[in-house]
């Protein structure tokens, strides 16, 4: 059956077709699509760099690219993946699309600022891309001084300007979410009736608001230092390079929670929907999100255990790092408990959500290993760290992103994708992922340092395994691209609520009309009030 372009209702997609109607739109849903396209492009660029990295590491002599090129590859891989893909991924795409809808609003509080933040993102991206095209940067995504400020011969200045500008995009998005969630909830939608996706985005926004300005000013100072030739991080005049690290990680540790909290929000939505169950421990989950956002700011020094920071500060940061793991633990346990006595349907989004839970657990627990001072002394700046954060960021956050993409794709486009292909892709991703990054834990404990394009030959076998995994992983990312594109043209019409899910976004049509709802919804039940036969007492009681 050919599904014809459904024109039975005016929706945000068919409400104007010209380029202008997209580039000047203030509709949060269209802006979400703009972001979706832009971050996909950056993901491909970042993935391309990753492939070069992995191919170089096939042989211990690293003959594929020169040392300088390799250094640029991992730097630009880290910068694009972190700043231009993962930080905006879920918030700017799904947050933008869903936050107003989930709270029953017509749009975000400041639609023009929302559009502005996309342009700011693009301008920042252009600076960074230009820097890459003009020859790249080689400082590592961490921009440590004095290398970045005095010794690197590459395009550091345009890159930091790009990241500086990008920061304001992130800040503006966070600002918009905070105000929207505070002021624009539908009647009856109290704080403790909000979906956890909203809580997660609120917590994320807090981090964006309070963390991002610090990295902005820090990178600005590095930029000045390069331009003027002197600066406050310059050890030649008494400056302390470790101060830079403090300022950098004051943002960049909380930033890892910018990446993972929204994914956690997605998992909460998906797990409840596909187990037909109210979320276990709703309040604890909400508090845990906020706790992660606050405690996340207290632990940055765990990146500096061998940096020459004071021993006592190291201990304080280590203790605090253990504390921040507790709310994450609460979350993992609550998701698992939600499955207990549920009615579980195995559809693609929930497969990704399970992938998230499992891989995040491994990644998080290896974070505990890193927070353990003496062990970190050994594994700091080795592949153990690389494996840790890819487990959380690729295994966790990107899986969460894929879950979101598959869960809300029918809502965004009105079309269904192929279940068979999407399950296959999920499986390939899971296998490829583990094959890529598990060997890196071993490599790391053996002592293989990161940011090395050549290495002692005894590490080769594990590296080859990892590269093999990366090719499978790459394939796994290409398949969704095709079946999702295919669904746009040939996919079945989705209907308003294909998963039979709760949540205000499912009450409106797919794709939603420009102002989301015909009539502002009135909320009189808690989130995730799934009642289909799961709660015997509920059924009995009413």
């Amino acid at each position, binding site marked *: 059956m050919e599904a014809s372009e459904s024109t039975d209702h005016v929706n945000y997609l068919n409400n104007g077709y010209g380029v202008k109607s997209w580039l000047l739109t203030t509709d949060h849903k269209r802006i979400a699509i703009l972001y979706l396209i832009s971050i996909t492009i950056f993901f491909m660029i970042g993935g391309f760099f990753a492939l070069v990295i992995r191919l170089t590491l096939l042989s211990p002599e690293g003959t594929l690219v020169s*040392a300088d090129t390799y250094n640029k590859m991992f730097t630009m891989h880290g910068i694009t993946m972190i700043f231009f893909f993962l930080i905006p991924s879920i918030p700017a795409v799904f947050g933008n699309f869903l936050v107003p809808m989930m709270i029953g609003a017509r749009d975000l509080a400041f639609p023009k600022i929302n559009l502005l933040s996309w342009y700011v993102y693009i301008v920042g991206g252009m600076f960074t891309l230009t820097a890459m095209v003009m020859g790249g940067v*080689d400082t590592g995504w961490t921009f*440590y001084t*004095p*290398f970045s400020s005095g*010794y690197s011969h590459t395009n550091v200045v345009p890159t930091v300007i790009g990241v500086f500008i990008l920061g304001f995009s992130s800040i503006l998005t966070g600002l918009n979410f905070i105000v929207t969630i505070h002021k624009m909830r539908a009647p009856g939608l109290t704080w403790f009736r909000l979906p956890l996706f909203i809580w997660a985005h609120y917590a994320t926004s807090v981090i964006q608001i309070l963390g991002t300005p610090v990295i902005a000013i820090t990178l600005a100072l590095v930029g000045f230092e390069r331009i003027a030739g002197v600066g406050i991080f310059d*050890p*030649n005049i*008494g400056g302390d*390079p*470790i101060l830079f690290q403090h300022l950098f990680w004051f943002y960049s540790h909380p930033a890892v929670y910018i990446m993972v909290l929204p994914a956690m929000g997605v998992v909460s939505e998906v797990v409840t929907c596909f*187990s037909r*169950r109210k979320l*276990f421990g*709703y309040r*604890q989950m909400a508090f845990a999100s906020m706790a992660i956002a606050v405690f996340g700011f207290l632990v940055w020094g765990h990146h500096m255990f*061998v940096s*020459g920071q004071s*021993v006592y500060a190291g201990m304080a940061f*280590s203790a605090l790092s253990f504390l921040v*793991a*507790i709310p994450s*633990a*609460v979350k993992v*346990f609550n998701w*698992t408990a939600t*499955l*207990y*006595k*549920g009615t*579980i*349907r*195995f559809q693609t989004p929930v497969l990704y959500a*399970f992938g998230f*839970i*499992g891989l995040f*657990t491994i990644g998080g*627990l*290896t974070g*505990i*290993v890193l927070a*353990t001072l*003496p*062990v970190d*002394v*050994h594994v700091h*700046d080795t592949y153990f760290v690389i494996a840790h954060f890819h487990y959380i960021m690729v295994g966790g956050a990107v899986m969460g992103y894929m879950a979101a993409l598959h869960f809300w794709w029918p809502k965004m486009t009105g079309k269904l994708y192929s279940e068979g292909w999407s399950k296959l892709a999920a499986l390939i991703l899971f296998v490829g992922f583990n094959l890529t990054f598990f060997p890196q834990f071993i490599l790391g*404990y*053996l*002592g293989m*340092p*990161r940011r090395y394009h050549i*290495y002692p030959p*005894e*590490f080769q*076998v*594990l590296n080859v395994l990892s590269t093999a995994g990366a090719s499978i992983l790459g394939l796994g990312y290409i398949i969704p691209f095709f079946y999702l594109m295919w669904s746009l043209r040939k996919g079945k019409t989705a209907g308003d609520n294909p998963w039979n899910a709760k949540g205000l976004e499912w009450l409106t049509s797919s794709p939603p009309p420009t102002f989301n709802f015909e009539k502002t919804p009135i909320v009189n039940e808690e989130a995730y009030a799934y009642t289909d036969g799961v*709660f*015997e*007492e509920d059924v009995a009681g009413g």
Partner: protein
Amino acid sequence: MFNIPLFPTEASTTASRVDLLFFALMGIIVFFTALIFVGVIFFSIRYRQGSRASRKGATSENLKLELVWTIIPLCITMGIFAWASKLYFDMHVPPRDAMDIYVVGKQWMWYIQHPEGNREIDELHVPLGKPVRLILTSQDVIHDFFIPAFRVKQDVIPGRYTTEWFEATKVGEYHLFCAQYCGTGHAQMVGKVIVMQPWEYEQWLSGKSSTGATMSSSGEQLFTQFGCVTCHKSDNTGRGPSLIGLFGQKVKLQTGQTVVADMDYIRESILDPTAKVVATYQPVMPTFKNQIDQAQLMQLIEYVKSLGKQQTASKGK
């Protein structure tokens, strides 16, 4: 041919202690990972759609359970923290009898000086069973002195001295890596640590890498060459204070504060003499910032140190 190493050699006293902690952590990881994996898989099969397992009594709130899974991880991590902190502290406090070896990192090599005067590049010879303290500094950017077999690692920072100590327990050759990204040649800034029997080490010291002059005697030479002696006379008649017995003592400054004359202080006194001016003296000492390199600086310090040992009590500041 396919001999895949899975675990690194333990070749220092620290290594086994770190590994023990690591194994404990692995136990915790495996336990919790298994718990979650089994939980997710078991529940989702047992309660799959269409299964006839009873759903009676499902709740979505249980404060006791929440407390349990908050408090248990908390206790576990705090236990780990106590254990880890003790070890971390020990890893930072070298034994009193540790021998010093000086290391300068620069793009992209390691320059190493033994107090006996031997110099080596990208190789570090150490005796078995003797605590060694490395005194590290960098000429340019941040590097990191990493010996996986010893489980030790320390950033090497320009403008400062950091230290790292170990006691080797196994004769052999081990990898030495620069673990802090430092530019083009980062991956080539590698070398070897060679652990020898103490008598072999003595032999090596007097062997071909020996220059004849110890570090402190080279330092003494520099002391004359740069004209330090003209002001720092041993009988305290020069324009500057006598440096005899200085090292490790408290120094009274013009501002009324006192500081301990450690390596960083000596270093600062030479490179930025006006930063901390000794009480009753004029800030007339010129800076030697652009004349002395890091290696020479270390020789001077070693010389000042040796003066300190000569007659510690004789100087009453």
